[in-house]
């Protein structure tokens, strides 16, 4: 891979052990500025653990995470967030007891002064067509709507790198296609790492795909080539009726 631009995010020798289990084994990974990368792999391949090492939900056993040339391995989650990394988790991580407006405001207020924060909230609500839900308590919304709220929270921070863990989980077809559009649009201004299971969705958004297996990177290639790859089929695609 010859990319002239410096990577926005790198890992070097990243390893995560849980007791005797090596969930992520010495992974060297690199994401170019502006790139959209999908992480796939069978269950237990280590992609979610790898993802959580990036967000510092887990403290890696060994190795380094490097963001824009700085080692952020030892940073706290809130410090990583302040550097412009937005995180969306597998199960929507939102403020369930608060309404949609408040959820987004809490994100907006971190980056804007008081008055501007309200404006930023309105913009995001409009962009994600969540306006009609603004006064609704998030805990009472449908799963797909909560996913939308979480995306709104993440986007409000204008992140330069966004980490998405299964963004389409639990969404309807319509919501998936809207999210596809959304991710393409986001990718114009931000780099993305997406962990996903939905192959149709990956085919729709991905240029390059990283396949995890047993804690290591098995293949890194375009979606087209990955789908042709016999090794990948053996460990993963052979077990599922996709593509």
């Amino acid at each position, binding site marked *: 891979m010859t990319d002239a631009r410096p990577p926005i995010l790198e890992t070097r020798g990243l390893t995560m052990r849980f007791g005797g289990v090596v969930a992520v084994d010495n992974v060297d990974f690199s994401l170019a500025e502006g790139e959209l990368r999908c992480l796939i792999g069978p269950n237990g391949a280590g992609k979610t653990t790898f993802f959580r090492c990036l967000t510092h*939900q887990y403290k890696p056993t060994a190795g380094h995470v490097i963001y824009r040339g700085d080692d952020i391995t030892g940073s*706290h*989650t*809130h410090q990583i967030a302040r550097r412009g990394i937005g995180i969306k*988790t597998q199960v929507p*991580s939102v403020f369930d007891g608060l309404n949609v407006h408040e959820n987004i405001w*809490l994100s907006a207020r*971190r980056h804007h002064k*008081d008055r501007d924060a309200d404006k930023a909230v309105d913009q995001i609500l409009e962009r994600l067509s969540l306006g009609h839900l603004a006064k609704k308590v998030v805990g009472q919304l449908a799963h797909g709507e909560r996913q939308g709220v979480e995306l709104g*929270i993440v986007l409000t921070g204008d992140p330069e790198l966004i980490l998405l863990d299964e963004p389409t989980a639990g969404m309807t077809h319509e919501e998936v296609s809207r999210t596809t559009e959304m991710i393409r649009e986001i990718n114009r201004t931000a780099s993305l790492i997406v962990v996903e299971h939905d192959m149709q969705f990956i085919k729709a958004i991905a240029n390059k795909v990283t396949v995890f297996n047993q804690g290591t990177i098995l293949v890194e290639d375009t979606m087209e080539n990955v789908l042709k790859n016999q090794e990948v089929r053996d460990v993963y695609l052979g077990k599922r009726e996709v593509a």
Partner: protein
Amino acid sequence: MKISLDLKSWNTHGLIFVGVLMLALLLAGPEVFDLFVLLKVILFISTAMLALSMAFIWGFGGILCFGQSAFFGLGAYAYAIGVINIGESTVPILLSVLIPAGFAILLGYFMFYGRLSDIYLAVVTLAVTLIFYAFIRSTSGEEYVIGNARLMGFNGISSIPVFNWPGFPNSPLWPDDIFYVAMTLLILVYFSLRILLRSHFGRVIVAIRENETRAEYLGYDVRFYKMIAFSIGAGVAGLAGCLFVSFNNFINPDVFALGLAAQIIMWVLIGGVGTLVGPMLGSLALQMLYNWLGTQSFVSFLNTYLVFGAIIIFFVLAVPQGLQPTARLLALRFLPFTRSPEEAEEAARARQGSGDD
């Protein structure tokens, strides 16, 4: 301008209602109560303030501190030792807030930056108050002196000077005046906490209660916010302790004991976790019940704590939300004028919707 803007999103009816009620009590107090009752009311104000501190950190900060009594006791002792040494009450009143708040910063630093889980936090704070209890009880010896103040161990410190007019140590306040001071402080603290909860800081505190991880993903340093909230709660509890001393001129280590520590939790639980007024009423109700049980002969075979235990079980099972939220729900249901415009809209929609379902 800004305040009035924010007011829209407050439960304005509720705030006005509480404000009017408190002001009425403030103005009418010494007129309607005789001296004996007035002194009791000052005690109730002190416990209401303590309930308020717990309501804030638990109901809004999500910090279940099982040793809030430690800060109450610290505030009380800080005032007592301060006023005995200084001979004037203004600085000791400040000390009764600052010392517990400062101690809470220290304790909070270790607990929150050490990432103690909720259950360990409850245990540690309980241990802290019991350590104070054991320590102060063991200070009867003459060697335990701070300046002019002997700690007196389990006997407690008596003849503690009451509040005086600021700068005039020889003009002590009469019970009427102490009532005015206590009630004014309660009103100020209540509305300050309400304003705080509408500020950026307050909204983040509530967000952390809702979802700590998401607050971190947004870039908020959760440890710092919790430490500060914990410290504010400790300062309010300390002020309550100071009022407690001013009411009976006496303090002993029982304020650190398990009994009070557990009662504070009960006040909030019964009044309603996540509200401010509820726990104040909860403390009032339980205190009055406690006094009433003490005057009844039939309870000679019934331990007061047994009755309290039964009440807490009843509340957890039958009124899990607590008094205030339940009363509010009933009011919204049966008294339409208590609804805010949004709630009225919601109710109207619900009525329409129920036809379709």
